[in-house]
């Protein structure tokens, strides 16, 4: 499908160094943050929106499927191209274009690393709250395309709540600009939100304008150790019902704690069944009062030990520990499958119980951590993909976890997206009517089905209609 003439044409657009076809280079774009792997036919790395437009036009003409890729940290297999596909790597589009202090908005290219934007706006006293644990290794475009969240999102909302405007290259190479710096805007359909969580299936995001907020004057962090998991998950709701709205409220189970401790040696209690890490913010008095309330609730709910960080350094260590969870799981087993279920908060204790039961039934190690405060849990199944029997049990466990989440009124993914990994379960979660609407949207925006086909929606479903 990809002949030398096309390769030469693309080289003419982005420069010879930025079209890769060598097997060794294709192998470097064959993966994301999951255990899946598939080599694309070629990789193109544009530096400007104009280059993206030109590349998309060539791809549309040649019916070449395009998979946008940020830093490939995704956990749903969504940035892995299909057979014969083109990976459009956006990492070179890494310029922060404007920090508008008066309107508290920043505009940046899609390939900017989220943490870099956070640092740049922090330098002028502002904050960009969406804080996926992958903030140093994921892009703003990827965050928008996946609807990324993080600990901070309990109080401040997810990526979606901050994206104000987008520049998107559509499937035919047309450039769509939607949204703007207006806080309120109901002028027509909300096109910005349409692209949130679209995983590169509706358009290529090239530029984003995001909202910023003033940086809170103070934060306080506490760690609560629970000998029993049940007590920890029950404490989550009690804290929120006590009138405190923490800026972060995270849970880690026993195995999670062991893996992180093995990596960081930061004195986490490896004999506890769970810990909660809580952060409050606001002015100094408020942050202090709220952390004290939360600490008391934890004690009353069965915590064996509650420790409020004495200074910023101690607090940073705790959050580094939390951010390191996902990565450090590689210490336990070679592979992990990180799920991302989201359940109503009241169902957290029951969901955690069911996960443990599913692990027991399938003889697997499943660790649980996540954003307890908003009901978004990350059961991670640890395994070795070289063992076919274990792999089969993993698949069965995944189905059981999804079924349990849906049964409890929850859903498949809170922030990682569907990709290919959750695709088979999508209809179970959203129902046939929503599936039809989604297919309609996909057909309207991408009639040739060249934008990341086979992600979110099955490849064939769409083809049948076309």
């Amino acid at each position: 499908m990809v002949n030398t003439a096309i390769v030469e044409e693309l080289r003419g657009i982005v420069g010879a160094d930025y079209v890769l076809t060598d097997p060794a280079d294709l192998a470097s774009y064959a993966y994301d943050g999951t255990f899946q792997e598939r080599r694309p036919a070629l990789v193109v790395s544009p530096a400007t929106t104009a280059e993206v437009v030109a590349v998309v036009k060539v791809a549309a003409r040649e019916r070449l499927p395009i998979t946008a890729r940020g830093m490939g940290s995704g956990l749903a297999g969504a940035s892995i191209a299909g057979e014969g596909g083109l990976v459009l790597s956006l990492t070179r589009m890494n310029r922060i274009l404007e920090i508008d202090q008066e309107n508290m908005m920043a505009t940046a290219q899609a390939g900017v690393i989220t943490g870099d934007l956070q640092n740049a706006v922090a330098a002028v006293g502002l904050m960009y709250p969406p804080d996926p644990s992958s903030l140093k290794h994921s892009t703003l475009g990827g965050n928008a395309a996946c609807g990324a969240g993080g600990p901070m999102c309990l109080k401040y909302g997810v990526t979606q709540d901050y994206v104000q405007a987008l520049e998107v290259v559509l499937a035919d190479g047309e450039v769509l600009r939607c949204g703007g710096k207006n806080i309120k805007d109901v002028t027509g359909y909300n096109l910005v939100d349409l692209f949130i969580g679209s995983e590169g299936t509706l358009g290529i995001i090239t530029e984003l304008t995001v909202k910023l907020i003033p940086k809170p004057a103070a934060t306080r962090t506490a760690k609560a150790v629970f000998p029993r998991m049940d007590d920890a998950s029950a404490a989550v709701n009690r804290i929120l019902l006590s009138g405190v709205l923490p800026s972060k409220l995270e849970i880690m189970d026993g195995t999670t704690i062991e893996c992180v401790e093995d990596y960081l040696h930061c004195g986490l209690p490896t004999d506890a069944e769970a810990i909660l890490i809580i952060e409050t913010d606001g002015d100094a008095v408020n942050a202090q009062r709220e952390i004290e309330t939360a600490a008391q609730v934890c004690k009353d709910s069965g915590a064996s030990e509650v420790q409020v960080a004495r200074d910023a350094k101690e607090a940073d260590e705790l959050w580094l520990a939390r951010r390191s969870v996902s990565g450090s799981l590689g210490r336990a087993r070679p592979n992990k499958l990180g799920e991302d279920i989201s359940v109503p908060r009241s169902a957290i204790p029951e969901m955690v119980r069911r996960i443990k039961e599913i692990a027991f039934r399938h003889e697997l190690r499943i660790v649980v951590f996540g954003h307890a405060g908003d009901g978004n849990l990350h059961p991670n199944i640890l395994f070795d993909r070289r063992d076919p029997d274990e792999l089969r049990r993993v698949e069965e466990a995944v189905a059981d976890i999804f079924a349990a989440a849906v049964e409890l009124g929850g859903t498949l993914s809170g922030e990682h997206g569907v990709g290919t990994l959750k695709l088979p379960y999508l209809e179970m979660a959203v129902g046939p009517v929503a599936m039809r609407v989604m297919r309609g949207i996909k057909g309207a925006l991408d009639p040739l089905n060249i934008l990341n086909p086979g992600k979110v929606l099955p490849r064939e479903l769409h083809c049948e209609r076309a």
Partner: protein
Amino acid sequence: MTETTRLADLTHDELYLHCIRCGLCLYTCPAYLETLLEPDSPRARIALVRAAAEGRLDYSERFADRIHRCTLCTACEKVCPSGVEVEKLLVEGRADLAEAGLLSPGVRRLTESLAANHNISGEDNSRRLIWTENLPQPPLGAGKAQAKMAYFVGCVSSFFPASYSIPQSMTRLLEAAGEDYALLGEQEQCCGFPLLVSGQEPRAEEMMRHNLERVRALGADTVVASCPSCYHMWKHVYPEVLGELGLRVLHATEWLADALEQGRLKLKPLPGRVTYHDPCDLGRKSGIYDAPRRVLRQVPELELVEMRDHHANALCCGGGGNLESHNPDLSGALAERRVQQAVDTGAQYLVSACQQCKRTMANGLRLLTKKGVKARLRVMDLMELVERQLE
């Protein structure tokens, strides 16, 4: 933790299994930061070695190129939550590539010269003391048969004119402090480091054994090296390969910090701002961050400032891992990036404790200046700076 396997228990080819491809290493990698292309990232290099080991990818020139576009600076290892030992993995990868005849041409020339001359310069090893020739009088340690301390000069400082001043300063400092030291002269051979990082351990071992015998013949109880790679070899690799050395191994900065703090050397004030670049082999790989800073604190009126990335996070100068032999342009670009960090501090002196860092960063400074960056900065080695301040 009971069920978790410790990495130390694993064989090397199992190491890559623990890379879960999270991508956290990308932003620490100087080569990736330069090109922003995944194949220049640690995650990709691990994936390549793994794919080859699992029979899913053939070795090719491009494969070899990607594996060599790395300074082995190990900044990635420092942040890897899974504890993947990237350097070990890549050195093994390079060894396999060498066996398959795919050693980088630049690196092959280097290793051929090593085999022929026992040094990296291509010159005859009898010229080892060429750096002493323009001194008013030869260093006291030259030609000495017995001494308490052996000063291991290293190839770059011995043969590359721009680095002569480092051993010249070092010997003058040793003498000013009244140290009983000797140079190995033409008996010194390459420490083995460049061979080891291009995957040619057996050849490296011969030279290591030779060097150890020469030092023992002096009856010395201490080896001091001003080159961090030589130091790293002597301190960590020699004992691993040759067994207990029975020697104290010091980096020049450690020796100098002690000598200054014991009052054995007196320094004039240097009113100026200095920033210190941590060499990868000295900092990240040997854990020596304090000694050079202790030295700088002993210089009266000197103001020490840190660059954005320092200590374990220090950005590599671009001079490591034989990258300069493999791809001088990429190495130069990395150097520019590092020197820019120094320029940003407003320092007048960018000081390192490694002849290779000094060379690479001096080149980086030239490249930056050519681009019109105004930099009132001098790149120096710590030994040179301190020697200039001797009373």
